[in-house]
């Protein structure tokens, strides 16, 4: 176990970490994820509020098991399960990330200045994930919500198949801003809660989901998310022009999609 509280004495790590007031900078090179995550926890316990981590190459579970407020800025490419089970912190990744981003996330914020891999936001229960570019397969599987705790995933580009599979709550917004025709299939299979908005058409929708009319509330919600998106990414996002586009809304048919299957 690493005792960072006495960091100046722990020469093993001083070369990796620089601390200034309530900020810290870590050079992750050569560190195993266990060491990195232990460092993050220790620094956070010391009252550090912002940590920059550099030369990240595939270290996993960054942002897992942390307490209190903390901003983590990641330079490099985080490994699988970034922000898994995260509980209220904020992570900013300046590049792409891999699979399992926001796995069972409870609260907090993840902003990816790039693309994510597969299985992002699996069983997400709260918090928000903003992705500037594309997402892979099986995004938002079994997202859930309770009362006013609603997880949100916003994707700037396109996503792969099985979006929102088994969704039980929450909001997914796919913006398709990079102009490529998306061909995602099996959208919303097994959906029994929550809502998915897609800018443009969604042709291949699972039989538990249906396409519904977009109303004022929906547009208001989408616009709000779009504004937040454009703030993070400083993009030339013409909110007004995009709001003029057609959005497709996908919702579940019922909360009991499998009534007649077993008996």
């Amino acid at each position: 176990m690493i005792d960072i509280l006495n960091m100046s004495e722990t020469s093993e790590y001083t070369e990796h970490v620089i601390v200034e007031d309530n900020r810290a900078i870590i050079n992750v090179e050569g560190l195993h994820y266990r060491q990195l995550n232990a460092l993050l926890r220790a620094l956070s316990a010391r009252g550090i509020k912002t940590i920059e981590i550099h030369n990240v190459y595939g270290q996993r579970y960054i942002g897992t098991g942390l307490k209190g407020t903390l901003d983590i800025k990641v330079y490099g490419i985080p490994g699988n399960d970034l922000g898994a089970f995260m509980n209220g912190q904020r992570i900013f990744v300046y590049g792409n990330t891999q699979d399992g981003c926001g796995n069972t996330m409870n609260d907090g914020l993840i902003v990816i200045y790039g693309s994510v891999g597969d299985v992002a936001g699996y069983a997400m229960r709260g918090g928000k994930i903003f992705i500037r570019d594309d997402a892979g397969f099986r995004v938002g599987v079994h997202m859930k919500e309770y009362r006013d705790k609603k997880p949100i995933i916003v994707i700037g580009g396109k996503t792969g198949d099985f979006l929102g599979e088994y969704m039980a709550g929450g909001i997914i917004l796919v913006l398709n801003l990079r102009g490529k025709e998306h061909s995602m299939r099996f959208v919303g299979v097994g959906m029994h809660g929550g809502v998915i908005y897609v800018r443009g058409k969604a042709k291949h929708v699972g039989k538990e989901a249906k396409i519904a009319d977009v109303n004022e509330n929906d547009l208001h919600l989408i616009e709000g998310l779009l504004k937040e998106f454009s703030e993070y990414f400083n993009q030339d996002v013409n909110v007004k022009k995009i709001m003029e586009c057609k959005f497709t809304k996908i919702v579940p048919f019922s909360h009991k999609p499998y009534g007649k299957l077993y008996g």
Partner: protein
Amino acid sequence: MYTERSRKNLYDDKIFSSCAIFGMINLKGERFTSKKPVRAVSCMRERGNGLGGGFAIYGIYPDFKDTYAFHVMYMNTRAKKRVERFLTRNFRTLLSEEIPTENSNVILDPPIFWRYFLEPLPPRLKDERADGDEYVVNKVMKINAKIRGAYVLSSGKDMGVFKGVGFPEDLAEFFRLDEYKGYMWICHARFPTNTPGWWGGAHPFNIVDWSVAHNGELSSYGTNRRYLEMHGYKCTMHTDTEVIAYAFDLLVRRHRIPVELAAKVLAPPYWEEIDAMEPRKRLMFMALRQVYQSLMMNGPFSVVVAHHGELIGLTDRKKLRPLVMGVEDNVLYISSEEAAIRFISPNLDKIMRPSGGEIIIGRLERSRVIEIPTFTRMVQIK
């Protein structure tokens, strides 16, 4: 410590592996050292558990370019004698020597590794009316099935497979891979859940110049194997990945199906997609799927496949395993994790994630380009 599985039971349990795969090709054909591939696969150490690793390297024997380079693993010296007798009867041996290895504290109890540079004996070849590759496949199957304690790890020209029990970085040291240069490398780190310690279970699997590294498990293994056995391929390595190498050999070399369509045999489009195609395409895909139904690979998989001139990446059609591809200058990288690519090449020109069932091909020479839009992404040489 390893135990060789009993020969009696060819239908032994297959070894599942959860792993890391990596491939790298210099599209101009320029040969490079082990530094980058080994660094990349060591970055994905988390995916393996040190009980298997391996490399297939292409372009390593320029002085013996036109002969078949057999890498053979022997569990005992008797097997070696029997194989060498067999080889003398069937091939002209230009050179035979032990594959140089380094003593290692971490690679324990290794088998014996030899390599032979062979040419099929002309009269035998004529007798059997086979071309060189077909002849070699036949002889390799015989050795693996009939000579106890001997396994041909690779049998292609100007290439070789180095693999075994250990972390890939340690095996790279053991086999002294820093002394080789090749224009294409594929690597594998293994996480076996059955019979750890079986040297033959490591990837890549090879037949002539086809090599495969695989992440996943084939639920269709029983079907695939029985079909391939009907066509003369013997499955002796107790690992499901073996069938992928043979499948490519059968489809591409024997049956002359272009590699893009061979990928569509392994990961076919859904029937509902086929039904919606225009008539000529529909007929072709229906035929492929019907005729080669037993070669469909079911279960999650991502594979990196190499043969002279091409590096191929493919996932199952539901994309249950990760695969990422990156390009920098003239080099194509294919990897289970993007981190591994960035680790050795932080500034990529392009990074792409193929969709489920979508094939990536890096071609050395553009001799005949069959581009089937929406099924292939070609990587251009600048």
